[in-house]
């Protein structure tokens, strides 16, 4: 058992170790289901990816535009955005009862950037771990939700990785997808996913800073854990010796070490369990009541 753990620890952030993990297979499945070239689920409804006429968009339906009536809003939920609504409700409910598995295991968008970042050499990657991610994320989310209500502008669609990544995967095959990257918004979004995705340590900076779905998911996780339902990563203080090995592999820089005391920021944490694998003392667990 100890030998096995040592082996896991040795390749904790190496690409081969990641590509053999179960989580990678789940992400691959998510990509096959949702993203081009196959995009099986969107094709069922006549779409080719998350973006299009809004059917599968998990973000647009949050927004209340200035002058929109309640009946208008509800009609758009059931007629236009229905698959996106089902998807996000599913994600939030699963999180409420079982934990944030969508973010860590299934989400093909975060998956692509994480997988992409694994093949980029560590030396040139950017380290965002000094930024307090949840403050940035909820700052972004509040403008995301409020700006359209007062018609100040909108962040939705102008900056979206659910739009850029499917097009990036479709672009080699499809001139329609390619045409997006000939426009200024396409170039801006490509820059964003490069800087906050592929070139970020862990590949999850976009999720951590700018994902509204992740922000809602974290809130659902918080409420669920208050009521004692959901599972979270937790630390057994008596087993932890404060070695800090677990800090580095965390893709969302949720673990901080202060005076030999480990803390997990539950608003950033996705249960990828990279820290649990590397812990030499088995002090990190996944279960109810994690702190």
């Amino acid at each position, binding site marked *: 058992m100890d030998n096995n753990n040592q082996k896991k620890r040795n390749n904790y952030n190496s690409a081969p170790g990641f590509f053999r993990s179960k989580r990678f297979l789940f992400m691959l499945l998510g990509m096959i289901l949702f993203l*081009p*070239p196959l995009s099986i689920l969107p094709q069922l409804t006549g779409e080719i990816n998350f973006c299009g006429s809004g059917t599968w968009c998990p973000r647009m339906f949050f927004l209340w535009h200035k002058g929109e009536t309640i009946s208008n809003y509800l009609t758009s939920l059931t007629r236009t955005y229905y698959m996106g609504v089902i998807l996000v409700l599913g994600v939030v409910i699963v999180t409420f009862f079982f934990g944030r598995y969508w973010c860590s295991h299934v989400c093909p968008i975060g998956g692509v950037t994480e997988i992409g970042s694994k093949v980029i050499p560590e030396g040139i990657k950017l380290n965002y771990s000094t930024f*307090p991610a949840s403050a940035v994320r909820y*700052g972004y989310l509040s403008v995301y939700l409020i700006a359209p209500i007062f018609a100040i502008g909108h*962040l939705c669609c*102008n900056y979206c990785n659910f739009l850029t990544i499917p097009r990036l995967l479709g672009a080699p*095959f499809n*001139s329609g997808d390619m045409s997006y990257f000939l426009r200024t918004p396409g170039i*801006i979004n490509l820059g964003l996913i490069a800087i906050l995705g592929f070139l970020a340590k862990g590949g999850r900076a976009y999720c951590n800073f700018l994902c509204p779905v992740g922000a809602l998911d974290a809130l659902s996780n918080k409420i669920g854990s208050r009521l004692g339902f959901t599972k979270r990563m937790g630390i057994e203080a008596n087993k932890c010796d404060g070695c800090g090995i677990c800090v580095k592999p965390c893709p969302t820089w949720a673990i901080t070490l202060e005076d030999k005391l480990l803390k997990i920021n539950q608003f950033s944490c996705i249960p990828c369990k990279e820290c649990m694998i590397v812990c030499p003392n088995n002090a990190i667990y996944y279960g109810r009541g994690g702190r």
Partner: protein
Amino acid sequence: MGKLSRFRKIAFFIGAVAISLIASHYNFRDMAKAKGELGGGKAKPVIFHSGLTKYNVLAKIAVPPSINGDIKVELRGNPEIPCRLYNYRSPVIDLGLSHFYRLDGDILKDVKPGKKPISLRIFLYPPAVDPVCGMPYEKGFLSKRHGWKTYYFCSKDCLDEFNRAPERYRGRDGLKGEYVWVFNSVKTGDELLEIPIIFKGKGEVTMPEGHVH
């Protein structure tokens, strides 16, 4: 330490709100959306005001049950301008789970009512406008760099006039022209839908006296 980190968090929150507010203003006016229905005649016109060199229109076109067969897509207007068509909803691998419209050159193949409307994007490269006389003119004839911009002229007279008082004509180089995006039935030749695309240009341009083309 705890107090400092809380202060940092609040600072980052405010910073994120400020940057997001600025970012939410971003609206690059190169794109417009159009809606129409095949067999619906004329759609609401698309109007562009700014002076960029490339524009695109995304059209969602519904297909009523009466439509069946190939549809020819073209852009009409004077002077003729380069444009490119992109089908915005064509899967890389068609699994046959839904009906998708296929674009072959400028012909939409096998159009029949499906679950989703046709989603087409057209990229237009409108001609530059002579800032002196206001005539849209092909690039590559007479040009003059002034400040950050290159201006195009229809004749030597216009260039001379511009050279006399460049400040007067600055910023009048918007794109002007009226174009129509037309959808025709290949089988019957009927015109099924027209989407007017209008470039308004910037400012009023008057023709100076004694102007000869």
